[in-house]
């Protein structure tokens, strides 16, 4: 059995959507960070994520019969066609909110990429082998900030605990197995997201403990829908801004 080209394109697009939307969020920090060194560091992560999005979209567009390109995929789809997790589209909030969101996602992204390096699809394993080098650094950077701010001052501790409490209900969706994941997994192209949960939870719990933060209970109600195109109100606004030029001037080349 061989994976349908459409399935591989849909899978790559799904992976791309996460890193594009998160990269777009991070890019809004550029020039506004709390200290110059960190402004530069977060911009670096935005650059890596958008670079990864391009690689995934190019892979998706490569097999397309309808003339898709990395840019049509990023700029000419509406919110319901995006299949990113809700977590990545949430607003930046303050520096602590951004770094907590980043830490929760980076840790997931690390284990995802680790699995994808073993993909039976060479295009994906190659992409993952390159991306995981970047994401190892992202995960280390965001974990360090979570620890520093969690165990910093009383104010920073309380800000980080509240960031964690707000973001936690969006983490369960990271481990949802869609029918596409199941199909991809059957061919050893990609992992079942549910299989990444244990590693993720162990790492996240370890870091949160070092940060003196309390892991929220797992049995709370969780937010889902992104993987099926049902998003928060925030994504439409993000896309309106991001897609403005190609939408307003459809015949222009940039």
């Amino acid at each position, binding site marked *: 059995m061989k994976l349908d080209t459409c399935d591989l394109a849909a899978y790559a697009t799904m992976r791309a959507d996460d890193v594009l939307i998160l990269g777009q969020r991070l890019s809004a920090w550029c020039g506004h960070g*709390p200290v110059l060194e960190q402004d530069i560091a977060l*911009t670096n992560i935005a650059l890596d994520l958008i670079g990864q999005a391009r690689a995934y979209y190019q892979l998706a567009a490569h097999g397309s019969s309808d003339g898709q390109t990395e840019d049509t995929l990023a700029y000419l789809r509406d919110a319901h066609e995006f299949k990113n997790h809700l977590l990545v589209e949430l607003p930046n909030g303050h520096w602590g909110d951004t770094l907590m969101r980043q830490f929760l996602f980076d840790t997931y992204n690390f284990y995802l990429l680790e699995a994808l390096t073993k993909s039976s699809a060479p295009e994906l394993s190659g992409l993952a082998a390159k991306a995981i080098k970047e994401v190892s650094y992202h995960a280390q950077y965001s974990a360090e900030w979570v620890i520093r701010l969690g165990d910093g001052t009383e104010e920073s501790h309380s800000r980080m605990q509240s960031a964690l409490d707000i973001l936690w209900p969006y983490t369960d969706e990271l481990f949802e197995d869609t029918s596409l994941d199941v199909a991809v997994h059957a061919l050893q192209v990609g992992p079942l997201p549910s299989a990444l949960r244990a590693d993720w939870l162990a790492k996240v719990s370890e870091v949160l403990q070092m940060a003196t933060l309390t892991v929220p209970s797992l049995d709370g109600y969780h937010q889902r829908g992104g993987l099926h195109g049902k998003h928060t109100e925030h994504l439409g606004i993000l896309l309106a801004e991001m897609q403005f030029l190609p939408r307003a001037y459809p015949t222009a080349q940039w």
Partner: protein
Amino acid sequence: MGEEFSLEHRFQAYIDAENKIEPKDWMPENYRKTIVRQMSQHAHSEVVGMLPEANWITRAPSLRSKLILLAKVQDEGGHGLYLYSAAETLGVSREQMIDDLLQGKAKYSSIFNYPTLNWADMGAIGWLVDGAAIANQVMLCRTSYGPYARAMVRICKEESFHQRQGYEIMMHMAAGTPEQKAMAQDALNRWWWPALMMFGPADAASPNTAQSMAWKIKRKTNDELRQEFVDKTVPQATFIGLTVPDSHLKWNEVTGHYDFGPIDWEEFTQVVKGNGPCNKERLAARNKAHQEGQWVRDAATAFAKKQQARAAAPVSATNPSAA
């Protein structure tokens, strides 16, 4: 006084022999002040200069252009860092310099008090603003203060790359749809005169030039640099089919330079005084980032102290959390 005179005399002779002044060398107080002022203004310009371009990062029209713009704005932050470090060699702290900026006491290049209104502005800034900056910075690679000159060598390499990227955007827009060409022309119209003002007042109105030239901080006058920029840039505009917004612009066979129209120095003075279109917004944006980052910086400091204390404390075998 005699001793001071002799020191200054030797200092000048040392500079005249094309030596670099290093942080621990004796230098006249005014030389130190001039260098600190110039380097800190330059650093502030890099950091404030991130804002007008950052304004378009989230709206960059392709993934490639978004990456290029992000990387470019990030480079500017990096230039700010080198320059603050270079200025710190003269005993002024980065905190103090940033404080002066936030309180409106320190200047930065007035060009960044103009707004970025369409995507072609990303081209115009690279082509004209970075182009004008390079004319100045190439000269500064040979400035007499060693740390400044060395920082500029690295910065110039990146800036000339930015300038080519900017021109590439302009070339692409000028050759695009009628709307894109109109954006490119509009951007040139708005950035041309402010770019010429970047070189500072006319030589006749620039009282500090003579001393800066004698100390080889500057090696060319404002007017010389401005003329070089016009001569280089006008043919580039013509090549991509854009019109420089100056009805007096004319090639002069006799001088071998372009003649150009009068600069509106009243506008320049007003923008320097804080009355430009974006002065207040730019300073407010820097202050907002600084204030909102206060708790983050405080937490980082507190955490670092705890870490030091933990490293210094004896490890207890009975208390695993002590490790």
